[in-house]
């Protein structure tokens, strides 16, 4: 037992002390934080960018209802002629110029949306909808319906996705955010298992090619050496993962604080400036715009993630991630150790790598397609039960909610699975590490498996 600890210690320290490990561990959270920052930046920019100021030139005499400014499109009626406005376009504050020619209400035609840049489909539809709405309003009024009745008819529809939890209470959830978390969890799990599994294989091959293996095996049992390596590298993975979480947390909070703090300050100064130079109405409008912007930020993917993260019980997800990482890693790394023991050099691993990666890749791609679409279906269930795919599939299913009994069953199966692979691998390993100069096949490995000690 003492020897296993010594091996674990060496495997752990020799990797953690490496420059590449330190660089990767420090750099990744910075990259994560930068990515996070960029996402926030673009979601805010995206909302800002879609808010347009449109000058309306109307030579229409029948349409008396006026277009009212909405969240993203600000209509301003101007007195100038179309030709004047066209000439001024680009120099004025207006992004677009909307021309409403004289048309009968029954057949609106000849409406133009002019801008320096081509108006997007989105904007086009919005403006068309707005015009259709005022035509309808005017027609309704003409048929004798009062304004107040019309107001009663108007309703703003927003869909809140809710999910009934185990306890029967409904919880706020966001399908989008769950999907994002599912993706991130699945991809991370896939990466971690593959990355550290391959490190185990490399370590075994290194011991074999440097021929230290025989010296080692005369001091310790092959099983001790294999398990020491696997556990040592698992600890490296855990160290890295925990450092990433802590560092990402610190950096992200710092970045978000600095960013939002500065933002608020800027907003107030803008409003003040606006208030002193422009008329009262525009100030109100600007304020509304800022409010809308904040709302939009809260409703953006980032806002959603933050909101549903709060509901999703992050601790549970992180703990389960660690469990399934350890389980999946142990499951696969034992197999990788067996492969490493069977070959003489890394180039020879190719023929074994593919069949070994197949279930992992399959689990990965099926989890991210089938499971995210139908997280409660049969396919999702089986993928999250079979140890070959369960670490990834379970991570993907988690944000959508998994019944406790399924979670427990999957965990038990995974533990049974890695005990199985460790057992199989150790039988192949003890023979493989002392075999040189032979091209190994799967058939050969099965033969080794059946050898007596």
């Amino acid at each position, binding site marked *: 037992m003492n*020897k296993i600890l*010594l*091996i674990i210690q*060496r495997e752990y320290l*020799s990797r953690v002390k490496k420059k590449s490990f330190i660089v990767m561990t420090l750099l990744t959270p910075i990259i994560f934080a930068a990515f996070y920052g960029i996402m926030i930046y673009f979601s805010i920019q995206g909302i800002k960018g879609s808010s347009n100021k449109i000058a309306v030139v109307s030579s229409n005499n029948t349409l008396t209802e006026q277009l009212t400014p909405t969240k993203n499109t600000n209509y301003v009626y101007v007195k100038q002629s179309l030709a004047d406005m066209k000439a001024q376009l680009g120099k004025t504050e207006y992004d677009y110029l909307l021309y409403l020619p004289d048309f009968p209400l029954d057949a609106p035609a000849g409406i133009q949306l002019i801008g320096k840049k081509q108006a997007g489909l989105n904007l086009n539809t919005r403006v068309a909808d707005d015009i259709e709405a005022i035509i309808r309003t005017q027609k309704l009024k003409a048929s004798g319906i009062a304004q107040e009745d019309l107001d009663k008819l108007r309703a703003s529809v927003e869909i809140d996705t809710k999910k009934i939890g185990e306890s029967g209470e409904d919880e706020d959830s966001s399908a989008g955010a769950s999907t994002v978390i599912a993706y991130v969890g699945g991809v991370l799990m896939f990466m971690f298992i593959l990355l550290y599994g391959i490190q185990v294989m490399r370590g075994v091959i*290194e*011991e074999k*090619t*440097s*021929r*230290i*293996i*025989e*010296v*080692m*095996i*005369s*001091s*310790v*049992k092959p099983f001790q050496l294999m398990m020491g390596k696997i556990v040592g590298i698992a600890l490296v993975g855990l160290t890295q993962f925990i450092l990433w979480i802590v560092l990402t947390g610190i950096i992200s909070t710092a970045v978000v604080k600095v960013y939002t703090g500065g933002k608020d300050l800027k907003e107030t100064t803008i409003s003040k400036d606006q208030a002193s130079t422009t008329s009262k109405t525009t100030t109100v409008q600007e304020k509304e715009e800022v409010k809308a912007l904040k709302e939009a930020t809260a409703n953006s993917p980032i806002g959603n993630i933050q909101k549903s993260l709060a509901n999703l019980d992050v601790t549970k997800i992180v703990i389960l991630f660690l469990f399934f990482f350890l389980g999946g890693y142990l499951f696969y790394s034992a197999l990788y150790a067996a492969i490493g023991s069977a070959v003489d050099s890394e180039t020879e691993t190719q023929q074994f790598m593919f069949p070994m990666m197949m279930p992992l890749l399959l689990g990965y791609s099926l989890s991210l397609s089938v499971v995210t679409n139908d997280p409660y279906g049969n396919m999702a269930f089986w993928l999250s039960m079979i140890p070959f795919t369960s670490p990834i599939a379970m991570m993907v299913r988690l944000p959508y909610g998994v019944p406790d009994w399924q979670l427990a069953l999957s965990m038990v199966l995974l533990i049974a699975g890695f005990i199985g692979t460790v057992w199989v691998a150790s039988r192949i390993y003890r023979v493989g590490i*002392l075999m*040189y100069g032979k091209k190994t096949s799967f058939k050969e490995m099965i*033969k080794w498996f059946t050898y*007596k*000690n």
Partner: protein
Amino acid sequence: MLRVNNIVKQYAAHRALDDVSLQVEQGKIFGLLGPNGAGKTSLIRIITQITAPDSGEVIFNGQRLNSSHISQIGYLPEERGLYKKMEIGDQVLYLAKLKGLSTAEASKRVKYWFEKLNMGSWWNKKVEDLSKGMQQKVQFVATVLHQPELIILDEPFSGFDPVNAEVIKNEILELNKQGATFIFSTHRMESVEELCDNIALIHRSKKILDGSVTDIRNHYRNNTYWVEYNGDFDTDAPSAVFDVLQKNVVESKTTLKVKLKEGQSANQLLALLLPVVNIHRLDEVIPTMNDIFINQVTAKD
């Protein structure tokens, strides 16, 4: 101290060891000889508990070999290596601790050996920065560091220059004097004659010869002598005493290699020669281990 009783080891279609028994005496240097692929390494791997025999047993100091003996055995395999990226000092410490030494004890001994073999400045070097011979030295230290009672060396001199080979040879002899028993596997027969007290020859999975080096060499004497003389002696005439195997004449000096016939002795040969020639020398040809090795191995083929 070590008894190997009727060991059989089967690998799929190949029988690596077939009913091999031998005995290594306390404090002796034991040579394990045999051509490539004879089964030497398989036997060593069983003694070092890397593999287990299919049948038969190994008795170490009166006990059946078990894992408590690991710390009393030091093994330098023929195919040996070190962790390339690890510092030498740490590496030897690690290997010593795996043999059961405490950190303090291990580092004390590592320092002692590094000092003794002029390796003091190597502590922080990485293996990849050392020459092959230097690596061998490190490996030798790692093998003997935990003061094992039994030290098994597989081709210990390969890769050493003559100076370092001599250094290692003296260390082996010194350790032997202090009481360590050695099993020594090699193809270099001159070092067997020089170092070994006893040998066993393994060929095609079977032990075909064992005993003390002196006994074996005496056993394989076959009444052959070198004779050197001045003068004329008719060697072509048939003789009841000897057959001439080889004859060289340099100027007036003649050198003969003769095999005496059954029941004849060197005295009879001298009686024939003395009246006729001036004898310079007469000595018996005692077969070298090399001759015996080749003789035995080819005879069985």
